[in-house]
């Protein structure tokens, strides 16, 4: 069994993984690009190694170099975090081929869930409710496409089999636009994902984004850890997440949760994973599975008291799950605000130096961040610089605590979206809870930002 974990990521999630390894008594290796030598987890890791220049493709996406780094440093396992190579089946396979442990599901499961058509078919077989649609690849023939479109109904979405996370999709509002939309999406998908296959799904008008967190071990056990509501989004990017989802029928959530845990067993899934659903009018519709730890995993940790990254590592060590479904007890309510280094109202990226970083603290506040006073946020990577989390006995308490945390956080010198979060925490729709995934964009179109000003 491995005693050293190579962290193949950067920023807050790299620090999060380091903390989980440390608590388990495992040693850590930080691999980093040349501009990332001053990252917090690099300073704290037992070993660190530079694997290339700033450009991700030459460093954090360079799988061969990362496997080599693991071999050089004696790391028996690689944790990919999220993004970068975390859902790259070829990388997972190369780690397996090198005789190392990939901390995540088997490469075959990543590959299957990465193909959105195959994933959907697997879910339908497992009885997980899906968005009604083409049930497979859209055919080449124009008439067949038109028939399928009429069957699915308009508006509908044309989606790339290789897409995901909001990329490679197009809304079609009436039959006349269908053929061209299919052709364009195919062409783009071929270029972007090297897979031109597309499928169709009914377009839901005002869905919420609800997802189910699962853990599955190598011994056939799987549990689900409640749901998260991630409906506060802009351009498919989540910005606030919470658990549990307000106003849901707990019986319905439980049935879907059990189906997700069951699906892990039928598809041979192991590790941590998330089943993403659209939710409308009391019904869940599967859209895709994320075969990795997610940015928003801590909200589930706060309400369950579990350490998901630790569980992930222990599953990879071959250990059985430390808990059964009956041990999963939700307590209170948790909220996460993603703090990005970007202009709060124009959304342009804003890398730069944080002269003084004073995170919030106090009861019910958790901070996940690699920032420190004097750290320079480089322009080469994702703009996420901190995750603020609040936990309270009730949603109101969690909201009040988050509003407090946002009022005291200090990121002097760095432009962040904290002012946007401050607006949202006081916005009537957010305070009420249960808004749909278009809520934020409607607010923006309605002048929220203009009113919020730039104080």
């Amino acid at each position: 069994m491995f005693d050293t974990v190579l962290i193949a990521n950067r920023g807050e999630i790299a620090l999060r993984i380091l903390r989980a390894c440390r608590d388990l008594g495992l040693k850590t290796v930080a691999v980093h690009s040349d501009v990332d030598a001053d990252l917090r987890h690099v300073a704290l890791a037992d070993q660190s190694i530079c694997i290339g220049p700033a450009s991700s493709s030459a460093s954090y996406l360079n799988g061969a170099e990362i496997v080599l780094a693991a071999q050089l440093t004696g790391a028996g396992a690689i944790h990919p975090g999220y993004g970068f190579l975390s859902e790259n089946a070829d990388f997972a396979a190369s780690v397996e081929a090198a005789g190392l442990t990939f901390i995540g599901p088997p490469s075959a499961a990543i590959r299957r869930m990465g193909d959105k058509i195959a994933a959907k078919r697997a879910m339908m077989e497992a009885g997980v409710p899906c968005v009604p649609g083409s049930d497979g690849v859209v055919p080449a023939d124009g008439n067949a496409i038109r028939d399928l479109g009429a069957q699915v109904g308009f508006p509908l979405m044309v989606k790339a089999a290789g897409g995901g996370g909001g990329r490679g999709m197009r809304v079609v509002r009436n039959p006349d636009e269908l053929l061209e939309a299919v052709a364009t999406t195919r062409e783009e998908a071929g270029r972007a994902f090297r897979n031109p296959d597309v499928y169709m799904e009914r377009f839901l008008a005002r869905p919420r984004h609800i997802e189910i967190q699962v853990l599955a071990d190598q011994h056939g056990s799987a549990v689900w850890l409640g749901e998260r509501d991630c409906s506060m989004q802009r351009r498919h990017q989540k910005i606030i997440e919470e658990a549990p989802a307000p106003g849901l029928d707990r019986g319905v959530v439980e049935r879907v949760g059990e189906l997700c845990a069951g699906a892990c067993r039928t598809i041979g899934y192991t590790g941590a994973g998330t089943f993403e659903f659209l939710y409308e009018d009391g019904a869940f519709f599967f859209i895709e599975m994320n075969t990795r730890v997610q940015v928003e995993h801590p909200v589930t940790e706060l309400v369950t008291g579990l350490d998901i990254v630790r569980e992930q590592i222990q599953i990879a060590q071959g250990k059985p799950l430390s808990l059964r479904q009956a041990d999963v007890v939700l307590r209170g309510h948790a909220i996460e605000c993603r703090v990005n280094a970007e202009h709060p109202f124009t959304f342009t990226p804003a890398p730069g130096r944080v002269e003084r970083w004073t995170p919030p603290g106090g009861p019910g506040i958790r901070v996940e961040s690699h920032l420190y006073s004097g750290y320079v946020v480089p322009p080469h990577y994702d703009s996420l610089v901190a995750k603020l989390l609040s936990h309270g006995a009730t949603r109101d308490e969690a909201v009040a605590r988050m509003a407090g945390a946002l009022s005291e956080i200090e990121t002097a010198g760095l432009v962040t979206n904290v002012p946007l979060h401050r607006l949202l925490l006081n916005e009537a729709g957010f305070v009420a809870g249960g808004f749909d995934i278009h809520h934020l964009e409607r607010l923006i179109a309605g002048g929220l930002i203009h009113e919020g000003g730039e104080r």
Partner: protein
Amino acid sequence: MADVDLEFVEQLIALVGRSTISELELTRDGWHVRIAKAAPGGGGGGPQTQGAMSAPVDPGPASPSEPTHLVSAGLVGTFYRAPAPGQPAFVSPGDVVEEGQTLGILEAMKTMIAVQADRAGRIVAIHGENGVPVQAGDPLFTIALAE
């Protein structure tokens, strides 16, 4: 005066303070700032800070009397002259451009931001290489203004 950002000047001063350079001059949208550091012992001048402010303002083929306008990088990032590898550049020297026309792309934090002409005119110089990192304020294009 209102649009000279004091915070920006403060950051510049901090930058000079941290660096080994002795002096920094910056021209941007009609304003100009020069920051000099105390000369300890008076001389020498160490190596330039990497990347920052290194691109000289190339006067280009503008005729001496022609008024010009500088389009600078609005933020730190990677500068691209074309929409994708292998595709033609947005503009080349000599091209006449309209206000609002896209001249290039800045990539920062996985986001592509269009660099647009804020004045109409003729491109007389392109200061940034394709694919190179640029700092906020670095000159990218010089436009000879239409009279």
